[in-house]
């Protein structure tokens, strides 16, 4: 074999190996959603509900994008809903991000809360949860989607 062909074969070998490695090498989870349903992960009644969130080595709060708060309204009256994404670190820091919305009638509702304070100095040993509160009682939470990048 000529040296040029040997070099080409070697380059092909290295490139193929590198591609296989890049595709197959295990990675830390970098994006995803953790969904918490009302039935399984929310407590409360009337105007206020709290839905838990789960963090860990594969869900560091530094990667938290925010959370979708999903709920159903059963009233024809106007209603306001405030939702809070809350985090308490294992070492005592408390942070939260909040958003609210007003509705004229019943139907499905969803509010996204962008993580600003709750992702600062993120860690895997954090406690995370979502809170709903409304000025009405004729509604119910469907759950919360915690999104991370």
């Amino acid at each position, binding site marked *: 074999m000529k040296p040029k062909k040997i070099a080409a*074969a070697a380059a*092909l*070998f*290295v*490139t*193929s*190996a*590198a*591609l*296989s*490695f890049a*595709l*197959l*090498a*295990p990675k830390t989870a970098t994006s995803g959603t953790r969904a918490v349903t009302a039935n399984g992960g929310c407590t409360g009644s009337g105007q206020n509900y*709290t839905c*838990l*969130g*789960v*963090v*860990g*080595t*594969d869900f560091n709060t530094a990667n938290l994008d925010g959370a979708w708060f999903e709920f159903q309204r059963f009233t024809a009256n106007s209603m306001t809903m405030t939702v*809070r994404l*809350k985090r*308490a*670190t*294992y*070492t*005592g*820091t*408390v*942070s*939260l*991000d*909040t*958003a609210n919305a007003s509705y004229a009638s019943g139907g499905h509702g969803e509010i996204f809360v962008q993580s*600003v*304070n*709750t992702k*600062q*100095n993120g*860690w*895997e*040993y*954090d*406690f*995370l*949860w979502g*809170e709903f509160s409304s000025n009405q009682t004729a509604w119910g939470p469907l759950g919360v989607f915690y999104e991370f990048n």
Partner: protein
Amino acid sequence: VRQSIAIAATGLVAGIVGALAAGRFAPSGAVQTAASASPRAPGAVIVPPGWDHVFSARLNAVETELVQQRARSMTHEAVAPSAEIPTSEAGPSRVAQRAEHYEKEIQAYTKRLAEHQQESVDEDWAWEQRRRVREALETSPAEGPATRAIEVDCRSKTCLGRLTFGSPLDALRYLHLSSLPVPRGCNGLTSTPLPPQSDGSYDLTILYTCRP
């Protein structure tokens, strides 16, 4: 034809080598379940590392007594190695890790407080927002500990509330209230309770984010 087969074989072998190399880097064991934090009920008080010195002092006294008792018993009878008091290897490192992270949180929070101080002041907004923050803080939740004094400073994006409580523990109780107030016009907050100087009066600062 022979050359094509050689190229295909090279690619195949390279792929296998790459896959094997990838396998070597695979984490062993159940990674996903290694360190999941359990959710804690909102409202529970988390005592930062180093704060529970009263408890630590009591623990130290018990440990000292235990060591003295062991020393006394060793003078009377031989103690087999198996009688060693079991120690947790994970304990101290976990404590150290927690203390280290608390230190980082203090640094990050102090930096954010400094950034607040350096913000330019939008007088009109700051005046109105200061009133809103004070109003929210003065309407303390019924289940929360009473504040002795409240100071508020708003700039152009953030506001800083300084609440004086009767004790550090009261401040922690306030911070972990499920009904922790967020003033109108603000959309979030952060507070890292700084180490107390005494068991008496304690100033808790809360940084409110109000404008992007």
